[in-house]
């Protein structure tokens, strides 16, 4: 065969082979994703930007709109977009709000992608349930925080003569007394509402995760009126007596320099506090962290998680973008990267945290999660809108924050108001 003809044949067959790919590329638009979240700054902002870069490396177009402010502003923006008929492809949402919001706009059933990735069995059951309000997956968890974490200041412990972290509320109160005697503020807290709600849930979960589940997550009136809840209120009052009296409406992070210096002793906060501490200039030697006191049994895991919900998109490029995003998020390497930046633990329980970049606190937290799942001691956070929809949460936190800041309210009265608030918000 003449050379030209053979060359022509080669070129022709190459073209024929390339054709399907070319045709495929034409029909599949470049994956694009529009996202709304509240993460405009700090480690959250850095993490979501890193996720965006990862998305673009894999061939997608990343269009993220961080809404300045907090969750309410973000939900405001989301509501406005939905009402305008133009929801983003994905948006940050969590807990029962996923179920509530899924009723007002169409979502995408991503169960096939979840199945392919084998993701469903690797996340905590409660979390998985919150992402499947209609029986199929419409959201994906990004990261998990343990709320009931106790941070101790190294210098503070030395100053008060405390050698180990308390493991029961009685020990905690003793430690607080010692710290107070040493002229320190025992408990560093913030003045924003959810902080007060968080203290209560840590107290109650530490007393009994089963009662927590019945009272807070299922709103069982008998549990709400029971003695464990009363004991939690009493412990909450003890917290209030050893907190920073001058915090006003400042965020808790203003206490950090004092905490590192040893003028404040303990912090009861979610795992993200680790990131705050590093940002404030602390090193691993300045603090220790572990589970908050647990009255009986192994430590429970009070869970807070961030998820992204998938809204039905208009356009093949957004559909492709959602698929790419889902696949990216479910990968262990992505979860690892995200948690390294924010100080959380991955939603996937099978990620190995032995790698560099994780702290012992995170490893301990992840192990805690695995154990708690095995022993069914995972509860959902009240203060961070995981246990109840926003309306119920807000009504309950009204009572809790008023109780904390008004020492004239006795524990019995606080409990009564909580029961009334729950009834009124239903």
């Amino acid at each position, binding site marked *: 065969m003449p050379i030209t003809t053979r060359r022509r044949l080669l070129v022709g067959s190459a073209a024929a082979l390339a054709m399907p790919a070319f045709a495929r590329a034409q029909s599949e638009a470049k994956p694009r994703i529009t996202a709304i979240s509240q993460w405009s700054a700090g480690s959250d902002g850095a993490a979501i930007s890193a996720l965006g870069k990862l998305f673009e490396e894999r061939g997608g177009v990343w269009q993220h709109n961080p809404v300045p402010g907090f969750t*309410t502003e973000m*939900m*405001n923006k989301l*509501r406005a977009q*939905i*009402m305008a008929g133009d929801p983003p492809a994905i948006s940050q949402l969590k807990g029962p709000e996923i179920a*509530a*919001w899924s*009723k*007002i706009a169409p979502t995408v059933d991503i169960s096939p992608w979840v199945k392919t990735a084998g993701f469903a069995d690797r996340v905590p059951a409660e979390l998985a349930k919150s992402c499947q309000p209609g029986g199929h997956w419409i959201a994906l968890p990004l990261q998990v925080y343990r709320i009931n974490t106790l941070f101790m200041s190294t210098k503070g412990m030395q100053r008060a003569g405390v050698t180990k972290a308390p493991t029961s509320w009685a020990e905690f109160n003793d430690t607080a007394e010692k710290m107070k005697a040493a002229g320190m503020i025992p408990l560093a807290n913030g*003045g*924003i*509402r959810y902080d*007060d709600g968080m203290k209560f849930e840590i107290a109650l979960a530490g007393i009994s995760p089963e009662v927590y589940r019945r009272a807070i997550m299922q709103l069982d009136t008998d549990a709400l009126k029971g003695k464990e809840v009363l004991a939690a209120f009493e412990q909450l009052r003890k917290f209030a007596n050893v907190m*920073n*009296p*001058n*915090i*006003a*409406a*400042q965020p808790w992070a203003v206490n950090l320099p004092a905490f590192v210096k040893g003028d404040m002793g303990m912090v009861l906060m979610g795992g993200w506090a680790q990131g705050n501490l590093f940002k404030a200039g602390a090193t691993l030697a300045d603090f220790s962290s572990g589970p908050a006191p647990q009255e009986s049994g192994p430590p429970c895991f009070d869970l807070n998680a961030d998820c992204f919900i998938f809204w039905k998109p208009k356009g093949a490029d957004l559909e492709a973008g959602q698929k790419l995003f889902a696949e990216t998020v479910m990968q262990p390497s992505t979860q690892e990267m995200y948690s390294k930046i924010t100080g959380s633990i991955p939603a996937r329980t099978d990620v190995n945290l032995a790698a560099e970049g994780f702290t012992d606190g995170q490893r301990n937290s992840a192990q805690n999660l695995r154990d708690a799942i095995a022993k069914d001691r995972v509860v959902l956070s009240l203060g961070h809108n995981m246990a109840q*929809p*926003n*309306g119920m949460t*807000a*009504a309950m936190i*009204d*009572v809790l*924050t*008023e*109780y*904390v*800041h*008004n020492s004239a309210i006795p524990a019995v009265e606080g409990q009564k*108001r909580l029961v009334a608030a729950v009834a*009124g918000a239903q």
Partner: protein
Amino acid sequence: MRTGLTPLAAKQDEGREQGVWRRRFGSILTELAIWLPLSIAAGHVVLFTAWTTWVSFTASSLMPDYTWVGLRNYWAVTRTANFQIACVNLLIFGFGFVLLTMALGLLLAILLDQRVRGENVLRTIFLYPLAVSFVVTGTVWSWLLNPGLGLQRVVQNLGWQDFRFDWLVQSDKAIYTLIFAGVWQGAGFAMALFLAGLRSVDADLVKAAQIDGAGPWRTYRRVLLPTIWPIFITVFVILLRSAITSFDLVRALTGGGPGISTMLPTLVVYDFMFQRSELGRGSAAAVLMLLSLVVVMAPYGLYVRWQRQRQARA
């Protein structure tokens, strides 16, 4: 005589000489220029209020949902501690803010009216808070009034160990800190209006009083202040409006805290509508807020009408 026709009739007479079309076009344009902006402005007020009122009677939660539920939202809202505290706070804050701002504004105006040197500089110093957004005002004052950061710490560091100024962290006194910050921001505005009024009083009146032997304070009390009485009303209305719609200031200064002790109606509306995703209840709170406004404004409206009738009779 229908006043609407008079200008038109006059125009038509002269328009006959200038051509029918030009005249017609001119009058259509006039009607458009009068009615288009006004109907949009008035319309948006009426429609938005009507829509909010309608939603307050529905089962709206995350989104508007037009299922009628009667007064259920109103009962639910008035029973929450949030709203009850907010109403009381509005009274305290409203009166305190308006009265103190007017008092300080009047004082500043009288002081500046004394032909002092550097009046321009002083006036700018008192006016600049108006240029600053409420968020910034609230944030800075939250630092200054914080016992551990601001005034209390500074005075204690200067030696007075027993000095206390921790209203910001006390549930029953925090509302007064809002008044502080609000007065700081609004006094300049009141001062500007009072000063303008004082300066525009007829000089002869003042001279007459001085000839009669009145000292400066009596001149003020007997002559100048009564003459600028209408300004008091204007300042009152605008300050009241500021107090009622106050939102950013409270959010930045106290966040509604400590606890829920400094909640105000606008925060309750925002809380219900957007934080709790309960549009129906939020709208009910908003309607209640507007109703309370009617209660306050009705006397003013009657006063204005009485004044106009008195002028018509004079």
